[in-house]
C-alpha cells in the first residue's frame, strides 16, 4: 500500500473557492446578460460544459481528478428543482456549483471532481 491510495496532499487537492471562481468567471464571460438561447441551447450548454471542464483539468496540481460538468439552462418563468446524491470519498472528492441569473435566463453549473487513487 503506497501513497497512490491516499487522498491528494494539500498542494494537489482541489480548492473549492478557486474552482468556483473559475466557473463563475466562465459563466459571466460567456452568458453575460443573455436571454435563453432557444434552439441554440444545446450548443451553448455543450460549449459551457467543455470550457469549464477543460479549464479545471488544465489547472496544475489537479491532475488526479476526473471532472464532470452538468449545465442546466432555464428560461424565465419555469419552476425547477435540482439536487444530487453521491457515493464517494468526502475527503477527496468535491462538488462546486455556481449559477447566473438574468431577467430572461438562469444557468446553473454543477461540477463534480472525483479523485482517482
Amino acid at each position, binding site marked *: 500500500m503506497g501513497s497512490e491510495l491516499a487522498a491528494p496532499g494539500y498542494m494537489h487537492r482541489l480548492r473549492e473557492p478557486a474552482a468556483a471562481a473559475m466557473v463563475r468567471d466562465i459563466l459571466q464571460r460567456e452568458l453575460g446578460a443573455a436571454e435563453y438561447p432557444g434552439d441554440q441551447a*444545446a450548443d451553448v450548454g*455543450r460549449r459551457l460544459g467543455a470550457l469549464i471542464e477543460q479549464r479545471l483539468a488544465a489547472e496544475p496540481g489537479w491532475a488526479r481528478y*476526473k471532472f464532470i460538468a*452538468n449545465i*442546466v439552462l*432555464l428560461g424565465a418563468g*419555469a419552476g*425547477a428543482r*435540482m439536487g444530487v446524491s453521491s457515493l*464517494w470519498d468526502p475527503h477527496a472528492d468535491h462538488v462546486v456549483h455556481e449559477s447566473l441569473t438574468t431577467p430572461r435566463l438562469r444557468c446553473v453549473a454543477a461540477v463534480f471532481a472525483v479523485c482517482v487513487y
Partner: protein
Amino acid sequence: MTEPADRGYSTSDVYKYLKAAVEMAAGPDQYQHAQLGELHNNIVDYATKKISAIRPPSVKVIVTCTIVQNTDAGFHISNSTHWDDDRDSLVTYQFQNKSMTVVVTAYLVQS
C-alpha cells in the same frame, strides 16, 4: 446502449433503476413546487441505493435529478466530462407528464 465489457456493472441495470425510481415516485400530473423536495428525495434515494448494490466498491456514483415545470420557457441540460471513456459511464432517464419533466442522471466513475 452499448454494454461496457469489464466495468463490473451493467448500464442497462442502472437505466432500469433510474426508470423505476422516477416511475415509482412520480405523482399527480399537477406541478406542486412545495412537494418537489419529497419527490426529489424519493427518486434520488431509491436510485442511489439500488445502484450502490450493483457497483464494485472502486466505482464512485453520483446521481443528479432535475425537475422542471412544463411551461413555455425552455430548458436544456448538458454534460461534459474529463474522464476515462472506457471505464466511466453516464446513464440518463427522462420522464415527462402534463406538468413537469424529470431528468435523472447517474455518473459512475472508476476511482
